[in-house]
């Protein structure tokens, strides 16, 4: 009996751990600390670019061995603003994975860099978008989101792992994981920029794909989707049937088993 109770306790503890982990794992594990170099002094775009970006992307944004050409994909200053305000750039070393982090620049510095890129670098493509959500239609945004975004970011907005396409199974793939991030932290402007610029493996949805109103509607819907409000109660990180199954076992059935252990104690005869 003792062994059994211990086993149940372990299972419950592990399960609870998984649920908690699952609910919080989407949040960044630790705030990213800027490296020792003092960066946050200047507010001059050129100074910042030459000091923090040029050694990887080149003085003319033509690219180097450490970072890609920024003019080739023509995804504009929308992309520059996106990588800066989501803290993805600058990297500390070329092999660091590109992920959302706390930005190291102030808003003023970001604006200065974007302005520099717009005026001095041969970058073409979408500019930083203006949003006008008063025209937005939530229902339209919902449908466009389901059709265009949900396959990668999940209809619940939690993101997902994207398979490497139809290739047959390699024993252990050395490729980096292709992940679509969750959308819970993106600001409306970042959502619009991601749509227009198509960062990483995300497709570009240019002005030919969405009208301004459609763009505004998607941004509005993503904002609504990622509100922490869940009408049914605790959402368990929105991981769907998986966490529901875990809760059925670890909360529902476990409580019931404790109940029957209490009312059904074995007779000692």
């Amino acid at each position, binding site marked *: 009996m003792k062994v059994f109770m211990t086993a149940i306790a372990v299972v419950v503890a592990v399960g609870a751990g998984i649920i908690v982990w699952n609910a919080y794992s989407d949040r960044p594990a630790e705030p990213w600390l800027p490296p020792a170099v003092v960066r946050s002094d200047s507010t001059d775009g050129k100074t910042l670019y030459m000091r923090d970006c040029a050694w990887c992307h080149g003085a003319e944004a033509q690219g180097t061995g450490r970072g890609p050409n920024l003019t080739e994909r023509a995804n504009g200053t929308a992309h520059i603003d996106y990588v800066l305000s989501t803290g993805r750039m600058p990297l500390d070393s070329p092999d660091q994975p590109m992920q959302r982090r706390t930005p190291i620049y102030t808003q003023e510095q970001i604006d200065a860099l974007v302005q520099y890129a717009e005026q001095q670098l041969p970058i073409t493509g979408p500019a930083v978008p203006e949003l006008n959500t008063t025209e937005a239609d939530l229902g339209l945004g*919902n449908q466009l989101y389901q059709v265009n975004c949900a396959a990668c970011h999940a209809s619940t907005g939690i993101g997902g792992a994207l398979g490497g396409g139809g*290739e047959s199974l390699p024993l252990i793939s050395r490729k980096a994981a292709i992940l679509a991030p969750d959308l819970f932290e993106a600001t409306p402007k970042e959502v619009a920029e991601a749509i227009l610029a198509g960062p990483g493996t995300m497709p570009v949805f240019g002005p030919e794909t969405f009208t301004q109103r459609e763009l505004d509607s998607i941004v509005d819907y993503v904002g609504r989707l990622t509100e922490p409000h869940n009408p049914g109660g605790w959402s368990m990180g*929105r991981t769907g049937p*998986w966490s529901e199954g875990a809760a059925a076992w670890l909360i*529902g059935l476990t409580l019931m088993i404790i109940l029957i252990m209490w009312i059904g104690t074995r007779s000692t005869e």
Partner: protein
Amino acid sequence: MVRKVVTWVDDRLGASRFTRDVLAKVFPDHWSFLLGEIALYCFVILVLTGVFLSFFFEPSVAESVYRGEYEPLQGVVVSDAYRSVMDLSFEVRAGMVMRQIHHWAALVFLAAIVVHLVRIFFTGAYRRPREINWMIGLTLLTLAMFNGFTGYSLPDDLLSGTGLRIAYSIALSIPVIGTWMAFLVFGGEFPAEQIINRLFVIHIFIIPVLIAGLLTAHMALIWRQKHTQFPGGRRREENVVGERLWPTYAAKSMGLFFGVFGILALLGGLVQINPIWLYGPFKPAQVPSPAQPDWYMGWLEGALRLFPAWEITTFGYEIPNPFFPAVLLPGITFTLLYLWPFLEAFFTSDHKPHHLLDRPRDRPMRTALGTATLSFYFILFAAASNDLLAKWLRVPVENVVVAYQILAFALPLATGLGTYLIAKSLTKREAEPPGAAPETARTS
């Protein structure tokens, strides 16, 4: 006066003797004998909440424009089935909590059946004369799974629609009769018009009636054959030691019912389940990610994800890939489960009736087989969420699949062997009186 009426009735029906016998019926008590009762009460709650839901559900895929409470769906074209579940969730008083209790009860119902089955297995309670009840129990498990799946599909949302699409392709994959079967069940090419209507009739009428009938038979057999009990104390093969039905057992059982109801109501009121407003209405062209079924179907989904993309040809006919993980595997699983009491009797040459239960450690081989099998299905179940794991670990999905494929073979071997050794060492330790010097020490 009252007494007169009672005697009058009794004279004619002989009810009092019957009642006296019933109320004096003795039930052995051990907490694990109440697992089946949890399942029973979940079923009762499923019926109660299900009746409420069926008042509001509209089993039709006719489409209209949504104009309900949920703002982000305004102006979207949805089916009547989906709209009625949305209305149920957002507009009908207590609709959301009823829906959520119903769904939680279904998940816990199946979990309770499985744990009950595991208890029966490890204690050998299925041995002669209880083989028939073992098979009835398995049939109940299968029916419960089917009913869970049909219910999950009713709201006609994107997630469950994807599940139906998978079910359709599984049906198609059966050699020779596949196409015919799929058309028969779905009423045409997927997504067929009639499917929601058919699922509704199956879900609220056909399967529940079958379950209720078999449950009655299941309990009648327990009554007739008497409950098994653990050895020890005054308990023998030929007696039953425990509490009388009235008042002790009945009181405990009522308490359990309210406990089960309370726990399910708490889950239904506090924890969100199946948020169909996020998944959106089913549209044939879309697939959500991550798409998983409810947990009791997870092992099948996991098997589909782990099975390699082999093309297997027999008699010049290529057998569609899903056939192996999704038809053959469950087929073998359930055949072996149904035959298990007979297989065991055959291999152990033990054909005697048994009313006393085994302790798992005293049957190391059976126990080891049991834990190995359970760990295999656990891996399949876990593999159904490989995309979530890949996301949390930030590794490619392909690597997670390979890891699970290896584990699906390695883990059962390890748990089976480990269980066997632990069971052996436990019985060995009991054989030696505490404090006695070990054999080797004495010879020196």
